[in-house]
């Protein structure tokens, strides 16, 4: 019983935040906790906000988030693509992981 518990928690505790050897992609995201990140989502949606939390599915929790939605319309008369953007802000937003395409992490000050 106690052994099982150890396995469940060890992966979190063993990773010091400043480690140079980043073994798993999720560890890189963990280093960005508390920083502002850029998240690209399916359906031409983008989010910028402070990363509060995430899990193995890439469900993401952001605060002070700004959502940018790009609408692309095709004008059949002029044969042109018309893009327009709308933005929404939210204090706290939870994003379902399967919508995530990428998470971009700001350069850490060396």
């Amino acid at each position, binding site marked *: 019983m106690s052994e099982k518990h150890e396995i469940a928690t060890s992966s979190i505790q063993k990773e010091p935040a400043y480690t140079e050897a*980043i073994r798993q992609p999720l*560890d890189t995201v963990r280093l960005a906790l508390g920083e502002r990140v850029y998240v690209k989502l399916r359906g031409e949606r983008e989010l910028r906000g402070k990363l509060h939390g995430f899990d193995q599915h890439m469900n993401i929790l952001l605060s002070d988030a700004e959502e940018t939605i790009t609408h692309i319309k095709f004008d059949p008369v002029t044969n042109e693509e018309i893009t327009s953007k709308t933005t929404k802000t939210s204090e706290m937003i939870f994003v379902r992981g399967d919508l995530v395409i*990428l*998470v971009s*992490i*700001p350069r850490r000050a060396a």
Partner: protein
Amino acid sequence: MTEISKKPGEFTRSLVGHPVKVKLTSNIEYRGILISLDGHLNVVLEDTEEYVGGSLKNKLGDTFIRGNNLLYISPMTRKK
């Protein structure tokens, strides 16, 4: 020519630390240095550049890409 592993997993792991091209199902391409990857093909790239239709659209720095969006990972020879 150096020997290329027959196992996909070994091959992709051998690309860690090298410049790669990652193409997504949306036809967007990301180029950068492969930092790490896992069993879902989640990928982390450094100095990431976003290419749409062959032209550079964005520079993103360190980027985590969720594996389900991937079409392929391919090694890249650096152009100067």
